């Protein structure tokens, strides 16, 4: 396993091409826009060595028997699935931000079971390749970005019907050595500070879309791969300290638009190529694993929001007010609700044909749909408790200014014993965790709410429920 520092140093050896604000970054590892996200991801490495957290973050490999980082593990029990959720919460509490590594983790678990089932039907060699790839990941402890979301162009059209065929990633050529792919992946969490990307199709496909049915692993610095780093709300604050709020770990995961222009992938790293009838299964497996996460990581991040709100109330001198306590109770209730959902969909997981474990898909989608609402409500309550000052505080430069700093210090003080700078720090943390990009990520990460609704309708077993009602109403069966 790599330590956090070894992970950070390993990124320096890559030739990752990253653009941000119209410039090509020469040293992305120490760049203020990127470094907080690297620090957050480094915790997924560091906590595997910390005796206080290793019970969750380190695990024995089912392939080698060696101790590995859980982010490279294949779930083999419901206990594995529950521990994943607990691990995500524990890391979220430490970072207060997205630590990005779950996406690739979910990708390898989804592909592990799906490649087994493709091989069962077509006699392909994907499952063995996948096991070899996972062995490589467990040995190297590489960070893998899960690359599913295509730009999608006109959403009413299938991939093969788009005006520009590259709006969904596709295979443009094959030879005896491998395949060549072209397209892009959008909203790529943590990809600029990953070692590899795991490409998967983004929707269920039909025969006409056969070229789009491709799953493969690509180094993030492979020839032809370009990352264009996304903006975040308040991202200019990354060049400051206090005003950034969470200076060390930033806000959410640091997303990028990743372009793959005629990128070569050797056959050893190709896990699906043309089996369009398995694209839907792969998307569903990945989505459910990823939706499972959100009560874990967002639970941990919400723990920090609850704590920051309580601290802000204390600094404002209103901690004893009954309405403040009531709001903190509500925030805690919502946090534990999303966590409960994640635990539930894990506890009710089941084995797949490959022997790996899959979450309960209905409850996983309920988890994520709750997150799209509850995190907004938690943030709303945090704003309520924090007060209007969350939106009006002068910058830290004014707080530190030799002429006017004393005014800011004097007039923005809360209770007498708390330094104004401490109040500033808590309120800035709260502000940055509860607005803009942080909220949108809760809405659309792991799929937009409508995607969860579709799955809930499909899994909701309405005929059974109608039968229950008809029976109790005394209606004779047909």
């Amino acid at each position, binding site marked *: 396993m790599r330590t956090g520092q070894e992970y950070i140093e390993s990124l320096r050896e890559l030739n990752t091409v990253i653009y941000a604000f119209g410039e090509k970054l020469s040293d992305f590892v120490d760049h203020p826009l990127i470094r907080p996200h690297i620090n957050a991801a480094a915790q997924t490495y560091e906590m595997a060595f910390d*005796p*206080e*957290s290793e*019970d969750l*973050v380190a695990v024995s490999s089912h392939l080698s028997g060696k101790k590995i980082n859980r982010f490279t593990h294949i779930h083999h029990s419901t206990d594995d699935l529950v521990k994943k959720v*607990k691990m995500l919460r524990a890391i979220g*509490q430490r970072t207060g931000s997205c630590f990005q590594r779950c996406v690739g983790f979910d990708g390898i678990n989804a592909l592990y079971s799906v490649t087994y089932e493709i091989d069962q039907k077509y006699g392909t060699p994907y499952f063995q390749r996948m096991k070899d790839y996972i062995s490589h990941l467990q040995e190297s402890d590489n960070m893998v970005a899960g690359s599913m979301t295509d730009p999608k162009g006109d959403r009413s059209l299938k991939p093969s019907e788009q005006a520009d065929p590259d709006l969904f990633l596709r295979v443009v050529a094959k030879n005896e050595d491998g395949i060549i792919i072209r397209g892009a992946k959008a909203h790529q969490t943590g990809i600029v500070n990953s070692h590899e990307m795991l490409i998967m199709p983004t929707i269920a496909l039909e025969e006409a879309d056969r070229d789009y049915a491709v799953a493969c692993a690509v180094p993030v610095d492979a020839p032809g791969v370009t990352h264009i780093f996304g903006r975040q709300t308040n991202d200019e604050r990354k060049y400051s300290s206090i005003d950034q709020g969470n200076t060390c770990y930033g806000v959410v995961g640091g997303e990028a638009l990743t372009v793959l222009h005629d990128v070569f992938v050797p056959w050893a790293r190709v896990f699906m190529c043309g089996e369009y009838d398995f694209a839907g299964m792969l998307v569903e497996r990945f989505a459910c694993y990823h939706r499972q996460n959100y009560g874990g990581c967002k639970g*941990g991040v919400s723990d920090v929001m609850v704590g920051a709100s309580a601290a802000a109330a204390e600094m404002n001198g209103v901690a004893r007010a009954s309405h403040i306590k009531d709001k903190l109770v509500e925030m805690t209730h919502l946090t534990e609700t999303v966590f409960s959902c994640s635990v539930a969909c894990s506890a009710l997981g089941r084995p797949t044909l490959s022997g790996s474990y899959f979450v309960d898909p209905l409850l996983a989608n309920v988890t994520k749909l709750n997150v799209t609402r509850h995190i907004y409500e938690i943030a709303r309550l945090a704003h309520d408790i924090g007060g209007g000052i969350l939106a009006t505080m002068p910058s830290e430069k004014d707080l530190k200014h030799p002429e006017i700093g004393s005014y800011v210090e004097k007039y923005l003080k809360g209770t007498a014993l708390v330094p104004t700078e401490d109040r500033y720090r808590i309120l800035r943390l709260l502000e940055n965790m509860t607005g803009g990009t942080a909220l949108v990520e809760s809405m659309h990460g792991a799929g937009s709410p409508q995607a969860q609704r579709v799955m809930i309708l499909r899994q909701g077993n309405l005929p059974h429920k109608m039968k229950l009602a008809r029976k109790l109403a005394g209606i004779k069966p047909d």
Partner: protein
Amino acid sequence: MEKFNQEPSPLECVVAVKFCGGCNPHISVGELFCRIKQTAAEMAPALQFGPADQPGSAALLVISGCPRDCAGRPEGFAPEVSVAGELVNRESCPFELIPATIVGKLFSLVFRR
């Protein structure tokens, strides 16, 4: 409080320590472990603490942050003393009293078997 001063062989007094992982701790397990080590240094200096996988340990101390007590136990370890939130071996114990209680129980396990 009894002052432990028995001096067994070094191998007999190593206690392996296992933490739960800390997804939602009710107590600070890091702070608690520091206090346990401090208390042991004062009351029973022969007690040493090692990692969970240290071979030849005389006992296992399991520290979980909440009453769920979900820390995984290494195979083949017995006996153990467990802290789970403000429970010691499943009995309620105020945080302030946990270090001395733990050291007492470990001492009994290691030296009075």
